[in-house]
């Protein structure tokens, strides 16, 4: 139970930190922000790997894990690449 509360504390603090950081992002960068955070949400890949790689679980779990890995990888690779493509176009005068 204590661990749960610590996780909750972490969640709450991250929300506050998120607000403070995101409101500082200028409109110019809002599109890259969307695709970039999209890539970050691909962190679920970590969970997907655990699900896909276990040997003790039934087939169904591995298949779901495979799907999860695929989805999350598209999200991560696609998100970071496209964000990088956009950002490297931004140039100062």
């Amino acid at each position, binding site marked *: *139970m204590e661990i*749960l509360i610590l*996780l909750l504390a*972490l*969640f709450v603090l991250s929300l506050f*930190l*998120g*607000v403070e*950081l*995101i409101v500082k992002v200028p*409109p*110019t960068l809002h*599109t*890259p922000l*969307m*695709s*970039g*955070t*999209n*890539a*970050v*949400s691909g*962190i*679920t*890949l*970590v*969970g*997907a*790997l655990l*699900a*896909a*790689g*276990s040997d003790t679980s*039934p*087939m*169904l779990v*591995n*298949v779901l*894990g*495979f799907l*999860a*890995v695929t*989805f*999350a*990888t*598209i*999200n991560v*690779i*696609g*998100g*970071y690449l*496209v964000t*990088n*493509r*956009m*950002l490297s*176009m931004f*140039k*100062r*005068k």
Partner: protein
Amino acid sequence: MSSSIVNLVYLFAGVLFILGIKGLTKPATAVRGNMLSATGMLIAVVITLLNSEIVNFTYIIAGVLFGGVVGAFMALRIQMTSMPQMVALLNGFGGGASLTIASAEYFSVLNIDAHTFADLLQPVALGADAFGTGAEGQVTLVSIGLTILIGAVTLTGSLVAFAKLQGLVKKNFGLPGGPIGNGLLLIGGLVALGCMIANPSQAVTVLALIALALLLGLFLVLPIGGADMPVVIALLNSYSGLAAALAGFILGNTVLIVAGSLVGTSGLILTKIMCVAMNRSLGNVLFGKMAAAGEAVDADEIYAGKVTSAQPDEVAMMLEVAKRVVIVPGYGMAMAQAQHAVRELADSMESKGIEVEYGIHPVAGRMPGHMNVLLAEAEVPYDNLVEMDRINPTFEDTDVVIVIGANDVTNPMARDAEGSPIYGMPILNVDKAKNVVVIKRSLSPGFAGLPNPLFAMDHTLMVYGDGKKAVLEMTTALNQS
């Protein structure tokens, strides 16, 4: 690999995500920020793979290869003008990942060796503490259920948003009863969730939850107009972040929680920014149509006999004697892919000593920052892109405003016509400039479906035609003079 080292590395990855988003607060540091964030992801993945719990790499390699190729292909091939679609699609995959992870987590506890679908429906003998003892088990179950719900809604919702933006689905239609139908779906989903928590051994509850949530995502987004998709995407983006954070609670994983919450707040804040810039409530975007015009505005009455049109070379003559020109791009510039042409026109003007700036409305185009990305692609330095608040006071000293494919964001009704559906939305006051040139194909309305009195003003010239073509002709005429 001791679990505390793994956890320390996860924490480090979380810090890299934070630094990455911090980098995104300035154009100069944004590329590096994105790299930092990607490094955090790489580190988190590698340390997970080193984890001893992972023994079977077949599915992982297959998934990473397949997903990696698809993701890279999409990212490198997509045109900048199709960015909204791309984000919608990626977002859908994020939701799909959360959905499948939570389901996998659930079924790995159930441990059903299902060969047919019917096997799944058999209740399983499950210890009382299968999901954890006491309150922890409850929290895990609730997290699994919510992650499935949110993940599934995000998946189908984002796919619909993608289809609408891509023009694959044009009609807006929902369940009979509109919000009520969706409300029933949601209630159904929550009931299934409740049953699952009460009796986790019945896989059928989870299957029902998945099905209802997938439908909910579908019917939540289908009734919403294509142009409102950016708001929907930002909201779904925030959902997928929340789903990731919830998955963190299931797995007791700090980096999922930190990263998920950052994404969650980002989506929410972008949603709010868009709603404020459109002067509409989130409820109105999601459930309403644009408010019906107080008194129906008659386009003919506004335009009849008052619209002056001009040819690109006439405009070029006007530009020649101008001191200061402001370019106001809108959705039409994206449609016409005219960003490079616009840059060339600006270059040509600047080489003649004319001061050129771009006036960027926060919701010009179809996603926040849409115009900035397009103009950046055309190598316009971002210092020249001026935000609404800063450009508005300068219009009075501006000789010519060139409005290219923008409509609603310049509509003076938003400022003057109380009762108009867009009344109160902050706009670019281009009508305060000495001359206004509007490039679009016709007098047809923009996203809000309203006529624009700007087009009928005395100092406004309409240049009809595709945005790219018209701008190219202007540049040629200007260069020859």
